[in-house]
């Protein structure tokens, strides 16, 4: 361990993670970035969905089919800097080995369904029995109380957003709901709450010696973001719904066309100072009656139409710079290609590059949480399935190589498939975008 790693806020903390997809893994990766040793427990018989996604360019490569599970970009997005331990928890030996690891951990983190977790034998009581001080954090869709109506229901990311009202809130007011299936805020918001709960649990444990059971029902957690709308419904019966990109707090705010095909700009100019500035820029493209702020809110259709006749004359990047230069919040509605060339994003090293056993190196998103004293590390990209099984079982479970061989032979544990098979992503030459001055990140 280097000096820097020793000083990270979570160095010395070990996390046992039973995570799938996003909600638990996104929390685990934040902890790994800040120094925790996160053991991602993986199964070959029922793999994490990120292992099933594979990679687009690999679909016709039969020679690489056996390693497809190590190649989805989501593997690194969700699991960078973690250690992957292949253990089949449905086998008795696999479960027993997992319990010996749990005894060496500070945190238990899981987003398996509550019933699945209990059936596997890893509910809080079982885990506490081997580690009384454990900080146990679970993120089931509907909580861990089997008495509750939705306890057995199928919940996963994209389906939680409509449930908590987010799809109904998405779209223009005169359209059907547009839905938000491209993104899963409930997963990420639950993950951030899990990180906050885990850190709070560690604080309690360090100060009092007592562990804790945290039950994060993704349904309840995400609903905590809707307070003002719940209150207004209770007080007046008002049911808020989608309102496009508009603001309840002032106008104009919206997404407007610019020159070219499908080029759009987002503008938030909802307070009085913004309007004075915008008025100077647009001149008489907008009717003078809109100098009255109440009319701006009351007649937004007309205001937006007039503003659009002005924005459409500009190249989107030019207009965004021009508006921001005058202090008005505006931004290109970025496409994924725009992000590849976004000089601001690149200058902040948002996309990170780290070594990958299978791919040489891999690129993934950084952390939105930035500390200026202990800035965190990405020791490696997403691990191969079972990459660290042997080292972890030796180190933490005290098993000999012979004992580990036995676990592997009886399919209670596994190691990487074809460990000598190494490939590169077809876009490997793009790496210079993210590592200015480094010609070949394999030098890392």
């Amino acid at each position, binding site marked *: 361990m280097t000096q820097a790693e020793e000083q990270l806020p979570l160095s010395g903390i070990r996390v046992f993670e039973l995570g799938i997809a996003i909600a638990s893994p996104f929390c685990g990766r934040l902890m790994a970035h800040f120094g925790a040793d996160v053991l991602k427990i993986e199964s070959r018989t029922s793999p994490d969905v990120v292992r099933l996604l594979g990679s687009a*360019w690999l679909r016709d490569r039969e020679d690489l089919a056996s390693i497809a599970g190590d190649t989805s970009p989501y593997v690194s997005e969700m699991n960078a800097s973690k250690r992957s331990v292949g253990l089949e928890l449905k086998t008795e030996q696999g479960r027993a080995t997992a319990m010996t690891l749990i005894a060496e951990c500070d945190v238990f983190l899981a987003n398996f369904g509550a019933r699945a977790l209990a059936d596997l034998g890893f509910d809080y009581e079982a885990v506490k029995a081997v580690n009384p001080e454990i900080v146990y954090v679970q993120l089931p869709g509907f909580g861990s109380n089997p008495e509750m109506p939705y306890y057995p229901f199928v919940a996963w990311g994209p389906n939680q957003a409509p449930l908590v009202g987010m799809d109904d809130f998405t779209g223009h007011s005169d359209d059907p709901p547009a839905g938000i299936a491209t993104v899963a*805020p409930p997963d990420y918001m639950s993950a951030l709450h899990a990180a906050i709960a885990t850190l709070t649990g560690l604080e309690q444990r360090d100060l009092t010696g007592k562990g804790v059971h945290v039950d994060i029902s993704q349904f309840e957690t995400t609903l905590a973001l809707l307070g003002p709308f719940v*209150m207004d419904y209770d007080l007046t019966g008002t049911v808020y719904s989608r309102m496009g990109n508009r603001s309840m707090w002032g106008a104009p705010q919206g997404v407007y066309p610019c020159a070219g095909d499908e080029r759009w700009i987002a503008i938030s100019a909802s307070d009085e100072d913004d309007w004075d500035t915008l008025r100077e820029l647009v001149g008489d493209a907008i009717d003078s009656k809109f100098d009255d702020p109440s009319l701006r809110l009351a007649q937004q259709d007309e205001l937006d139409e007039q503003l659009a006749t002005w924005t459409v004359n500009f190249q989107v990047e030019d207009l965004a710079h021009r508006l921001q230069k005058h202090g008005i919040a505006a931004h290109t509605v970025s496409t994924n290609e725009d992000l590849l060339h976004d000089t601001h994003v690149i200058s902040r090293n948002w996309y990170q590059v780290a070594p990958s056993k299978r791919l040489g190196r891999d690129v*993934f998103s950084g952390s*939105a*949480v930035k500390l200026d004293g202990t800035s965190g590390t990405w020791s490696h990209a997403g691990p191969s399935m079972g990459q660290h099984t042997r080292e972890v079982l030796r180190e933490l479970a005290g098993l000999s190589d012979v004992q580990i061989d036995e676990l592997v032979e009886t399919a209670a544990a596994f190691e990487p498939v074809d460990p000598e098979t190494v490939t590169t992503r077809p876009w490997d030459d793009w790496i210079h975008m993210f590592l200015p001055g480094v010609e070949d990140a394999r030098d890392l």
Partner: protein
Amino acid sequence: MSGPYTGIKVIDTTGLTGAYATRLFAGLGAEVVRLEPPEGSSLRRLAPFVETLEPPENSLWWNYLAMGTRSVVIDPGDSASLAQVVSQADVIFEDQLPENAMFPDEAVNPATIRTRILPFGLTGPKRGWQSSNLIAWAASGILYTTGFTDRAPVAPAAPVQLICHAAGASALAGTLLALRSKRLTGNAQNIEVSMQEAALAIAPETGVPMLLDDRVHRQRTGNRRDLGRPFGLYPCKDGFVSLIVLMPRHWLAMAQWVAETTGNESITEAVFEDNAVRIEAKDLIDEWVEELTTQGTRLELFEEGQRRGIPITPVNTIDALVDDPHLKAAGYWSSTELQDGTEVTVPGAPFRTNAQWWSTSRAPLLGEHTGLYLT
């Protein structure tokens, strides 16, 4: 016992972006002071308002997000009072660049952790740019991919202000990391969260690693997605339900349900067990599925579909959520008190613990606690 952060003194000078963070922090025990100018925090000016109350006590955003905190009013020109309050803080939440801070660096104790939530961060060419929830979504790649093809793209759940809360929750996670670090090493440090990065972090679907993997320009496809069928929002008697059928066992259960309810036996033909075939025949599949969904209400379809093991959920509206049977049975809802004594329903604790962590109280009146902090 009370929350583990009892005894930690926090000052919040932010508006909407920091408010969710300090609401949680206060709920976990911290003593949070909202430092307000005489006219009140910007959060107090956000609609919806309580009709029967006057400003600055009538904003529902304030009455929700400021729960559990205290209000201290200091005139921005009164540097002596600012210094007196600020020097006591373990943590300060700010939403301004350092050169625009409410108080000079000298007023801040070197042992204080400063947490800044900024539009585009402390560095980079857009350092001085302004932002909002909408702007952050635009800068994430996700806004471009959300909405119907014949309309302008839309931000996900715009009224909820998700990116403000994601930035706030990220800032609190960073703050708790820094507090732990300080407890272990004695060193204070500062936290920075860029709203754009808070959005990018929850948007890998439109991120560069995904683009470099499949080279697909992602664009909006309305409220259904061509990853599978049925996949997306389907109309029913009182709104819409969401269906995401990808797994073979989910399709078999779905086809069986449609056949039993509508008498359509064609849907159970083996050829449709192939997701690629269903995507090819998506208009037909959607029509058959709608024959089922239009016969039930959101709640009926949710309960029956889930009983059959199908990933179906209602497209809920606020009224349906407040009346939801699971949330009622779980005792989720809580309440708070407004200035005139009215009790109003609010969401309860964001998570449950076997130790007593979460406690909160009504939002403070403007300047309610000034006397406690200024002598």
